């Protein structure tokens, strides 16, 4: 690994050395020193280094990586901090509609003072309900309507996670998280508010046969391959594909257009003035020295591209440092010719102005690209001068020249490690960029068939460097803009220095072993890429990353597995952990006879094919939800009924049918979520659950409430109607009733598209426990489920049994009548039937038919409903019974329903004398009393008053006398 990194370190030596020195507090001093000296010796660039060192030092104080992360977070999370303005004047206007169309939008982030420009045809991220997973869309049209509102018309793209689960299977392949689908499904609003646009993003179209690059983890790149029309996936039509590709190509090859810059590095484009100056000074010194090497390096990298993929990657990776250097040199190169102090200042000034379109116009003239004239200023770096390129190449050459040199030096693994660390100082950025780099490299190979390695690398380096510096500054040059020149130069030089290729290729290959060496550790460290990790860790992890990216994807898999265990990660439940109960070792046995089969079908958990006896209720609920769905509005319905009357199952059935209908395109599709008051630990957890089911985010209750309120109150693009079932509503009651209030308030808002089906037991719940304002919002759409009548219960049992002959008709009727008389609870009914089958099975020899008969059912009912008291009293010990008698005697004597143990004791003793029993001691009586108390025949005061403990009967006196008389 160290070896792989080493060239990189050298490549970027100019800067890195300066850094290594200044930041020696971060690193083992010895290691730095050795690197510095060796490089100095090799290139004699100490002057440049010392020059840059001073400038860099000040910036060091901030951890660039951290700042970078912060910026990233800001961009995704704090949308409110952005200011949106149009690019240029209105392109066209529609007098009738009073709209003005524009060709681009400028997004200025208040906090970081960065700016980006998005033009039509670009891909953008749009705020969705989930802040971590913004929507992807292509910008089709930008306009402003009469009310000064900025609108955008977009073509949606869907991530795999946005597609319905059951449809994902249609793909029949693994989909990488970066793959998106052109969304042609109807029903989404394509007109969005411009302010929901977060930033632009890169989307790469792929032909159907192309595989999505597996390795790419970069968040900001997406691949589109297929389209989705709500029912099936189709590969992109060739026309569409080429159109997309064209757009892509335009942007990439097209020019050093500001757009590309923005597009590739959304929002991260910050560069400090200071850095700029440093580069300027340094580059002037350097480039001259190294012109020869430039060419050799260039040809080397180019030829490597023509080789097999693997070696290409190697080359690629090794080039990276060089590329970085190039980037840093980039901006100054242009102005190099006239580089005086004043010029530098002017340059800096330009940079400051760069945000204004006018400021850069003159620089743009240099550009060779004839594509769209860049409206937004680029930095001076856009220069096309051959010298500039040469400067860049020189850096590359340096890398190569040092490579063999180093290789000999750092033969010991330890030395390599140190090198690696040294290197780290510069590689603080997240791996995304690095991987992106690679991505770009590959894709450029495909599309342009040109040597893009160095370019792409340098691109990423821009990124790196800039993120580190992270000062407010205009977008910086993209090395890509040099392409044309590069092309020329390459063509010219290629032949001349052809021989160099071979030797260099050899050298590059030499680094491979060391890459392997570090790989497992690198992948392990990958996990640590949390913004807050200590610097040291970050550094090491990032350095290690590059070598990893050099490897084939297949190599990576084994290294990944052992990663999990030793890493004590953040103390949060892994969000996507899928807990499950272990799989059973033996298969369940199939029911062997009719009774078992019946028992299985009669289990409450079995979901019946049809729901008899609730047709009306079903229809009502269905109609309610359906109408709301079709209207695209929201509403509440309150459903009440005693337990076991089929409320939840009916509602679920409705949802199932609606989903079916939505699948068949008879209804607009909707999202169904469910919460249950009993499954929440606290009413406010309802917010958390809803949000999690809706978007997958895990946040605290208060935050969730805010997010949900925002979600339901703002017109979200691409939002489906949500059907929310709130079971056991009464448990969401709080003193302020804020949970209920919010729940019922959301559907009343126009944009919410929320349908709530609230379920509870009591019919008058709204009147009883809700405040007026809550009850009013709940509305009057109510439904109550009546307890089942015996006929209905009978029908339920018969339909469940479904022609299995296990019960006698009379038996079923008996159960139904009994349950209907008691509670009308279908669960009870099924439980009794199930128990009867068991009783029948064990006494089957007695029953002639083998069917469950009345007797069995009677027995089951007895078991379940008969009061246990009488039997328990009869089986109690003699003195326990006597004590109960004494209690009753005492109650009669005193005329009260309460007595102390002492009083009862006296009665007890008297009774014993009558019966001629041994007279118990007080301790024994106390023991008897507490035993009866534990069974709750008695209610015994719980204190240590001993004889003065007061006792009451917990069962009726009649029961006791009845139980005791029988003997």
């Amino acid at each position: 690994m160290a070896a792989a990194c080493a060239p990189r370190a050298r490549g970027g030596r100019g800067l890195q050395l300066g850094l290594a020195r200044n930041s020696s507090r971060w690193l083992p001093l010895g290691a730095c020193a050795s690197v510095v000296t060796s490089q100095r010796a090799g290139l004699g660039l100490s002057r440049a280094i010392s020059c840059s060192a001073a400038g860099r030092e000040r910036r060091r104080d901030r951890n660039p990586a951290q700042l970078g992360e912060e910026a990233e977070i800001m961009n995704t999370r704090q949308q409110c901090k952005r200011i949106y303005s149009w690019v240029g004047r209105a392109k066209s206007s529609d007098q009738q509609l009073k709209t003005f169309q524009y060709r681009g939008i400028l997004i200025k982030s208040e906090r970081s003072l960065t700016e980006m420009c998005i033009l039509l045809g670009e891909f953008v991220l749009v705020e969705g309900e989930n802040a971590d997973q913004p929507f992807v869309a292509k910008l089709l049209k930008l306009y402003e309507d009469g009310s000064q509102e900025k609108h955008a018309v977009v073509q949606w793209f869907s991530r795999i996670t946005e597609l319905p689960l059951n449809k994902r299977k249609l793909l029949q392949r693994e989909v990488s998280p970066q793959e998106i689908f052109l969304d042609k499904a109807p029903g989404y609003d394509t007109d969005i508010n411009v302010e929901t646009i977060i930033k632009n993003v890169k989307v790469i179209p792929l032909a159907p046969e192309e595989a999505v690059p597996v390795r790419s983890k970069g968040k900001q790149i997406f691949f589109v391959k297929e389209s989705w029309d709500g029912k099936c996936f189709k590969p992109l039509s060739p026309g569409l594909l080429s159109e997309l590709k064209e757009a892509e190509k335009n942007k990439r090859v097209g020019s050093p257009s500001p757009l590309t810059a923005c597009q590739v590095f959304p929002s991260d484009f910050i560069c400090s003035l200071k850095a700029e100056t440093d580069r300027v000074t340094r580059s002037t010194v350097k480039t001259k020295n190294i012109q020869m090497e430039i060419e050799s390096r260039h040809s080397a990298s180019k030829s490597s591209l023509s080789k097999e993929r693997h070696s290409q990657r190697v080359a690629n990776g090794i080039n990276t440092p060089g590329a970085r250097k190039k980037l840093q040199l980039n901006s100054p190169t242009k102005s190099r010719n006239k580089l005086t102090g004043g010029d530098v200042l002017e340059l800096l000034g330009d940079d400051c102005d760069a945000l204004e379109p006018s400021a850069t116009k003159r620089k743009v003239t240099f550009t060779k690209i004839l594509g769209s004239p860049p409206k937004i200023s680029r930095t001076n770096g856009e220069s096309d001068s051959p010298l500039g390129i040469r400067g860049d190449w020189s850096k590359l050459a340096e890398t190569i020249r040092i490579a063999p040199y180093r290789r000999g030096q750092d033969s010991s693994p330890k030395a390599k490690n140190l090198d690696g660390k040294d290197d780290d100082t510069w590689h603080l950025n997240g791996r995304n960029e690095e991987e992106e780099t690679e991505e770009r490299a590959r894709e450029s190979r495909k599309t342009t068939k040109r040597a893009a390695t160095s370019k792409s690398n340098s691109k990423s380096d821009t990124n790196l460097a800039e993120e580190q510096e992270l000062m407010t500054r205009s977008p910086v040059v993209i090395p890509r803009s040099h392409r044309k020149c590069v092309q020329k130069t390459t063509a010219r030089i290629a032949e001349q220095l052809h021989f160099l290729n071979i030797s260099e290729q050899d050298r590059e290959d030499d680094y491979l072993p060391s890459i392997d060496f570090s790989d497992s550790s690198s992948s392990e460290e990958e996990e640590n890429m949390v913004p807050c990790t200590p610097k040291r860790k970050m550094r090491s992890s990032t350095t290690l990353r590059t070598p990893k990216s050099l490897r084939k994807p297949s190599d990576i898999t084994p290294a990944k597995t052992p990663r999990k265990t030793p890493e004590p990660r953040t103390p949060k439940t892994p969000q996507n952990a899928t807990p499950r109960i272990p799989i059973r070792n033996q298969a369940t046995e199939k029911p062997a006879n009719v009774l078992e089969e019946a028992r299985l079908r009669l289990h409450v958990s079995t979901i019946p094919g049809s729901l008899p006896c609730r047709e009306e209720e079903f229809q009502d609920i269905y109609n309610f939800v359906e109408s709301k769905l079709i209207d695209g509005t929201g509403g509440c319905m309150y459903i009440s009924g005693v337990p076991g009357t089929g409320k939840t199952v009916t509602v679920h059935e409705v949802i199932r049918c609606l989903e079916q209908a939505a699948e068949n395109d008879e209804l607009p599709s909707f999202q169904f979520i469910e919460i249950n008051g009993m499954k929440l630990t606290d009413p406010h957890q309802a917010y958390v659950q809803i949000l999690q089911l809706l978007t997958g985010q895990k946040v605290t209750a208060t935050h969730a409430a805010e997010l949900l309120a925002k979600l339901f109150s703002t017109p979200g693009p691409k939002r489906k109607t949500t059907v929310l079932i709130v079971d056991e509503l009464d448990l969401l009651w709080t003193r302020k009733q804020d949970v209920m209030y919010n729940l019922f308030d959301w559907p009343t808002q126009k944009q919410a598209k929320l349908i709530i089906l609230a379920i509870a037991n009591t019919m008058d719940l709204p009147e009883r426990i809700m405040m007026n304002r809550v009850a009013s919002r709940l509305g009057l759409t109510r439904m109550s489920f009546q307890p089942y009548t015996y006929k209905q219960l009978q029908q339920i049992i018969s339909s469940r049994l479904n022609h299995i002959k296990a019960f006698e008709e009379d038996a079923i009727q008996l159960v139904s009548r009994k349950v209907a008389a008691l509670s009308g609870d279908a669960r009870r009914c099924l439980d009794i039937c199930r128990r009867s089958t068991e009783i029948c099975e064990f006494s089957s020899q007695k029953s002639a038919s083998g069917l469950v008969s009345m007797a069995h059912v009677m027995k089951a009912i007895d078991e379940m409903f008969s009061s246990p008291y009488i039997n328990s009293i009869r089986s109690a010990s003699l003195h326990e019974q006597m004590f109960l008698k004494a209690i009753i005697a005492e109650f009669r004597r005193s005329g009260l329903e309460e007595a102390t143990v002492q009083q009862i004791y006296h009665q007890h003793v008297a009774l014993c004398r009558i019966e001629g029993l041994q007279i118990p001691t007080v301790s024994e009586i106390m023991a008897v009393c507490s035993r009866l108390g534990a069974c709750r025949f008695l209610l015994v005061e719980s204190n240590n008053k001993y004889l003065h403990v007061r006792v009451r009967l917990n069962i009726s006196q009649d029961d006791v006398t009845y139980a005791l008389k029988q003997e």
Partner: protein
Amino acid sequence: MSKRKSKETSSVNGECISQVQRILRERFCHQCPNGKLFGVQLQYKHLLELLKRTTVHGESNSALIIGPRGSGKTMLLNHVLKELMEVKQVRENLLQVHLNGLLQTNDKIALKEITRQLQMENVVGDKVFGSFAENLAFLLEALKKGDRDSSCPVLFILDEFDLFVHHKNQTLLYNLFDISQSAQTPVTVIGLTCRQDILELLEKRVKSRFSHRQIYLMNSFDFKQYLRIFKEQLYLPAEFPYKPFIQKWNKNVQSLSEDRTVQEMLQNHFHYSKDLRSLHMLLMLALSSITVSHPFMTGSDLLEASKLCRMDSKANIVHGLSVLEICLIIAMKHLNDVYEGEPFNFQMVYNEFQKFIQRKAHSMYNFEKPVVMKAFEHLLQLELIKPIEGLPVRAQREYVLMKLLLDNNQIMDALQVYPNCPTDVKQWATSSLSWL
């Protein structure tokens, strides 16, 4: 020769006795599943079938085992589980979660314990659960994932079930029962409780989800069976190493059970309590009197043990009191008789005592008031008297209202056996109003 032989037998006996004691003590103290079950065959079969269906067919169930303390609820369950575990299919499939209402005093702790026992921490990583809500969601998610055919059935055993009922909203019970009534991971919830009114404690939604299977354990045996149990409990097992001793011992047990006094004693014991734990206690006490020189249990051993069992604790304390303290107690007894159980204070007791002293000055030494106070406070410490509740805390010591925690019968009984009790005092105790 004969001398040597006798010596040998005695040494065997010593070894033997300790073996006997070990075996029997184990039987009395541990609830070992190897022991025998008495009179619960039906319940046993019911529970066994229930659990078998859970494991074999993946059927969800819920049941409550209800019975008074010491009626063998846990014993029954352990027996069933032991038999189940002998079936290979069950052993490999069944997951068990044991919870106890006394340990898992709220749902949060219970959920943690469930997660631990299901060994799902590995999914969570080595972290402790953040919040209760997270934990619940996690567990529900886990149980929801399963289905009847593929997931391991989970057996939840909730000991002291009645205590779970008092958890907030009965969340845990609702969720367990809900899972048992829906097509998720097959679970069987077995609750053990001694409360007969347990169903009334369940909330209506929870109650509806409970399958209403109740297995009652009643101790419904009569004295004959009790006697048989008594014998069974004392018999030595056939695998006991000293074969000749087994016969002798068992014969002795047989003869004991036929002895009238023993039967009477057992009958009395049976009348007080039918549960086997108290029988064990009795036998345990009798067993400790067995030594090498006294190798077989006799009727008197059992009687002695029974006496120990039946001992009245408060009356026993009276035995150790001084005459002054006895006098105070008698004075209190008189006050109770006169005022029909109304509370008294020190001053009243002292006055009563003074009256007695004045009458019988020749036989009793007149103690000074502070000494009497000291004696009174000693009684307070022994909890023979107790201040009544709801009194001002700052009341003067002499005037704090008290109640006597002894019954007249207890006092009289204690006096009967009190050693060297002055006759006057005895007389004063019996002739309550004669001195007037």
